[in-house]
């Protein structure tokens, strides 16, 4: 492509370099593996020495495999993982469905913002887990009270990110559409919403991790299912491998959720692709 001085050439080039020892040692993926195995080895030796009351990684893994077939309170490991996931999906969906539109409205309309903000600011710093007693009082000890905690927990970051997503939009982008004679509706649909989309996804990611904290707390307090309950169960039976197995399962499932959200973001915000680890 040598058509003109100002023409752009986009080419993704992978330079082929010979594999030297130095390159292998400094390879990103190699270092990931090193990091992971170092962690496992340190864990193993601490556990094997009988320190800190830990189970070894092997024992934990074995326990997890055992839980996949053995039922605990009527559910195997997948059943419990699903019980927690289900609460998160429902609670998060409600929290985001309420929080994202509210945050967008607050960003777009100063009157709505002035009305909502004082009350919202009052509740914002309150940890969602503080709602547990009220939640049980209102909804009993069944599913709704756990979901309520998650709704509260995921609502707040959704509102905050949607709001700031609108507020940080470059005013020049609005100038572009204003000189073209765009009306307010066009400004919102052509500029505000697409511009705020990445911020919405940031809110979703944060909400998701808050939701996991909330579901755990709720399950620790009152539950007969879920990964949090497995941890409590292990604690009561003094089985460290059960506790660690529950923790490892949470890590895996929460990671899958976050991967799913990132995947969705890549599909919906294609212009953000190629910016690594954003």
């Amino acid at each position, binding site marked *: *492509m040598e*058509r*003109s*001085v*100002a*023409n*752009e050439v*986009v080419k993704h080039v992978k330079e082929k370099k010979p594999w030297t020892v130095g390159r292998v040692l400094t390879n990103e993926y190699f270092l990931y593996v090193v990091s992971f195995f170092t962690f496992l080895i340190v864990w193993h030796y601490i556990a094997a020495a009988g320190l800190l009351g830990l189970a070894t990684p092997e024992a934990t893994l074995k326990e997890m495999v055992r839980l996949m077939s053995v039922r605990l309170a009527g559910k195997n490991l997948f059943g419990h993982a699903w019980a927690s996931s289900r609460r998160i999906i429902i609670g998060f969906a409600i929290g985001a469905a309420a929080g994202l539109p509210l945050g967008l409205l607050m960003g777009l309309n100063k009157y709505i913002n002035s009305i909502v903000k004082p009350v919202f600011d009052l509740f914002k710093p309150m940890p969602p887990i503080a709602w547990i007693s009220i939640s049980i009082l209102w909804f009993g000890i069944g599913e709704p009270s756990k979901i309520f905690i998650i709704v509260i927990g995921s609502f707040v970051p959704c509102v905050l990110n949607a709001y700031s997503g609108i507020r940080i939009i470059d005013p*020049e*982008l609005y*100038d*572009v*559409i*204003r*000189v*073209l*004679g*765009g*009306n307010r509706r*066009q400004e919102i649909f*052509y*500029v505000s919403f*697409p*511009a705020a*989309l990445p911020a919405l996804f940031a809110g979703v990611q944060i909400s998701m991790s808050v939701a996991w904290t909330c579901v755990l707390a709720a399950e620790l307090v009152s539950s007969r299912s879920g990964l949090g309950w497995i941890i409590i169960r292990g604690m009561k039976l003094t089985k460290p491998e059960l506790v660690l197995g529950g923790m490892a399962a949470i890590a895996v499932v929460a990671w899958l959720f976050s991967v799913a959200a990132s995947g969705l973001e890549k599909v919906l*915000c*294609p*212009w953000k692709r*190629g*910016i690594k680890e954003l």
Partner: protein
Amino acid sequence: MGVNPERRIKIQVKNLTKRFGDLLVLNNISFDVADGEFISIVGPTGCGKTTFLNTLTKLIPATEGSILIDGKEADPRTHNLAFVFQEPTCLPWRTVRDNVAFGMEVKGFPKDKLEERLEYILNLVGLSDCANLYPNQISASMIQRVAVARAFAVEPDLLLMDEPYGQLDVKLRYYLEDELIRLWETLKATVIFVTHNIEEAVYVAERILVLSNKPTTIKAEVHVDLPRPRSLVDPKFIQIRKEVTELIRWW
């Protein structure tokens, strides 16, 4: 002021005045622009060039005076105004193609006309090869070309440019100025081109309006009746450039 009487008047600016509180920025500016004319506006730094443009496009309201397009009060809703900003402005979530189409979408062009004109403009500006790239994948100069293409695409009644090439290196600037002239000659738009670069103004414009220091008025106008393509070392070119420089100098 001096529009060639044989040409139809497109834009009339009458007694345009802008005050910010008691700071008078634009002082009773009046001029006409012919249909399809290319005007440059030059003036000393801080003379209110950007305020002037923003008032013309109604981004900020004028204190007094009026701007008429084809005899009617200018309004971004009814007239096709287009603006190329000093800073390259592309919508980052739209590809080059969709950015060029953006103005036409906002203006509500019918779909088939939009598609047809989009391809035409993309080819004309040489953006077809990178039509599917996002703005963060192309350089700042390319983004500015996209903005220029977007502006021409809406068939503007009036195209305003605010130092669009101010931040580019010389070689690229020459190239894009030629491209701009080519687009203007092909698409027959009425252009007001603001710049602080006198050589650039003489190179592109048919007529140059020289602004004074604040409170801004039109100090002089210079007709540039040189044939195109113009040469920067043509003695006539240099003479006009010197003339404008004399008018503008504040040192």
